[in-house]
């Protein structure tokens, strides 16, 4: 592990137990992230991208059937920690999360200032006074007027609530923040403002991001690296500069071609068929039934083929 490396996920699995069988939401996922780098996890709904975030942060529901693998954060494998150790040492201390629909994730009966201060009090046993001071620094950082410290969530606009959810994730100064669809409920201009903010914070606080989204166009606002997820597996990882210009996996190619562009004349295309159910998946490449480039070998599970900083899980490149 090099000095620059912050997070290394190896062979991470998260299955859920249901009455129909086990859902393979995260299946043999490998991922690496350097300090001050932002990786985007792109995928359609139900592909397991939120489950991956929850597996990394160990925010699990009760019906877990399988949860194993390695998650190295710095030098420690956090998967070996007990739940209590994980809560004390890792969650919100070293990594935090801005949940999906964060605008509605705020507690309606707490003043937003208290809510941003809370992680400091819980994790660092800070006095309320000090924690509130830290909260007001964070408010300034995310561009929320200090007068809003005493307000409740319903008194604020969506953009302001989103900024406060971000402040909440930053207040303990973690080294990694997971952003789950941070702007999907926001308007175009507000969205652009939030991405400007996230870019600025990344430089100022030297934070790494894992950005989870299905919005390919806005994901490029933040991405240094891109990982494409399909049916519980990562099928391609590459630097953003290569990926957006030249995606390799047929699914990634199709996905990028489906984005309507404001500038440029290519007509967007769609991908026919639908993703497989994550219950009882068979052998072989999971995209094969929808793949235009399918051939005989696709009946076997393709390996992850790595050259330089690029990895593709497709027989075409074997």
């Amino acid at each position, binding site marked *: 592990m090099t000095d620059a490396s912050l997070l290394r996920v190896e062979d991470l699995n998260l299955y859920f137990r249901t009455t129909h069988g086990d859902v393979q939401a995260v299946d043999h996922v490998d991922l690496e992230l350097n300090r001050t780098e*932002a990786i985007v996890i792109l995928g*359609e*709904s139900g592909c397991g991208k939120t489950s991956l975030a929850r597996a990394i942060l160990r925010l699990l529901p009760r019906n877990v059937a399988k949860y194993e693998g390695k998650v190295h954060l710095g030098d420690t494998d956090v998967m070996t920690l007990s739940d209590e150790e994980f809560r004390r040492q890792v969650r919100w201390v070293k990594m935090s999360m801005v949940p999906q629909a964060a605008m509605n994730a705020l507690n309606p009966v707490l003043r937003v200032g208290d809510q941003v201060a809370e992680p400091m009090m819980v994790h660092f046993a800070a006095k309320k006074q000090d924690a509130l001071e830290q909260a007001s620094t964070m408010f300034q950082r995310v561009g929320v007027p200090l007068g809003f410290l005493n307000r409740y969530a319903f008194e604020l*606009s*969506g*953009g302001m609530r989103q900024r406060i959810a971000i402040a909440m994730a930053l207040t303990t100064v973690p080294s990694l923040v997971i952003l789950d669809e941070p702007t999907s409920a926001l*308007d*175009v*201009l*507000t*969205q*652009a*403002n939030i*991405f*400007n903010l996230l*870019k*600025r914070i990344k430089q100022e606080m030297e934070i790494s991001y894992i950005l989870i989204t*299905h*919005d*390919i*166009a*806005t*994901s*490029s*606002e*933040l*991405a*240094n690296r891109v990982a494409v997820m399909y049916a519980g597996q990562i099928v391609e990882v590459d*630097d*953003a*500069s290569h*990926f*957006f*210009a030249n995606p390799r996996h047929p699914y990634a190619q*199709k*996905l*990028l071609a*489906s*984005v*309507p*562009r*404001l*500038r*440029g004349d290519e*007509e*967007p*295309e*769609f*991908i*026919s068929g*639908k993703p497989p159910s994550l219950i009882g998946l068979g052998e072989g490449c999971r995209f094969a039934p929808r793949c235009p480039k399918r051939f005989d070998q696709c009946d076997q599970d393709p390996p992850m083929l790595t050259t330089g900083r690029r990895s593709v899980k497709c027989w075409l490149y074997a």
Partner: protein
Amino acid sequence: MSMDTSSMNGKLLKVEDLRVWFELRRWGFGRAGYVRAVDGVNFTLEAGEAIGIVGESGCGKTTLMKTILGLNTPTDGSIWFQGQDLSDKGRRETRDYRAMVGFVQQDPYGALAPFMNVNRTLEEPLIVNGVRDRNVRKQRIHDVMKEVKMEPVEEFLPKFPHMLSGGQQQRIVIARSMILEPKLIVADEPVSMLDASVRVEILKLLRGLQDSHHLAVIYVTHDLSTVRYFSERIFVMYAAKLVEKATVDELLNNFMHPYTEALLAATSDPDAENALIMKDVPPGEPPSLIEPPPGCRFHPRCPKLIEGLCEVKEPPDFEPVPGHQVACWLYQ
């Protein structure tokens, strides 16, 4: 009052100085004020034409759409459909009007009744509108299912909404809006709840239906990048007013209103360069529609403010290029 049809010049829909205000809750006597959700909107729509109304949430685009559907009563101004004023219509005529206007909702799962299977969902509008013959109804349902490419038809008819994928649900919603053979379809963010790969499929389907049936489509959205492929003209709405109206190419290449400019700048295409630059976005948020700012409503955020004019006088529609209207003092 029935207007002379010839003066509409083949226009299907004409919206004239439309205002829809909602009164705030009152305590005792006197008025607390109004939410001016739509405040002076003018446009015309030709038969078979697709327009996109683009605006941020809270700008009044949904109210405008609902008023066109006949679900809100205008406070002032009028809506003419095929030469007839909607406000003059009685109950029966209003029902006939609604049969000529289809509605595609934003969230397909919320728009479909969970206890009705596909067949019942599609049959009900026919029954309500007096199609008595069972075989005619059956034939019509089959035709429309084929048009939205839900085949084999027999397999889908007994299914309930929860058994369908998001894309299939949206197809059923479109089929329902098409079943009475309307002249106009109003689509409220028809693809915002769907995945990227399905989005384009649904939009292409709508575009295809528009062409084959000579349908007019009003496509309400906040996403500029999809509008350009699926409509002829774009209207930009800000704080209850249409601030710019132009054809798609004209609007994208020769945008005039500073708000349109900001919207276009904020919309990104997938490009790794984006991560390296900061976007030039106007500060602040859209104004309250209860007490909108005087003069131009965009002036508090506008980088090109003309002092002494923009914050005082409301800009009328200027037409610096034929067919391209903009409500901004820069173009007087």
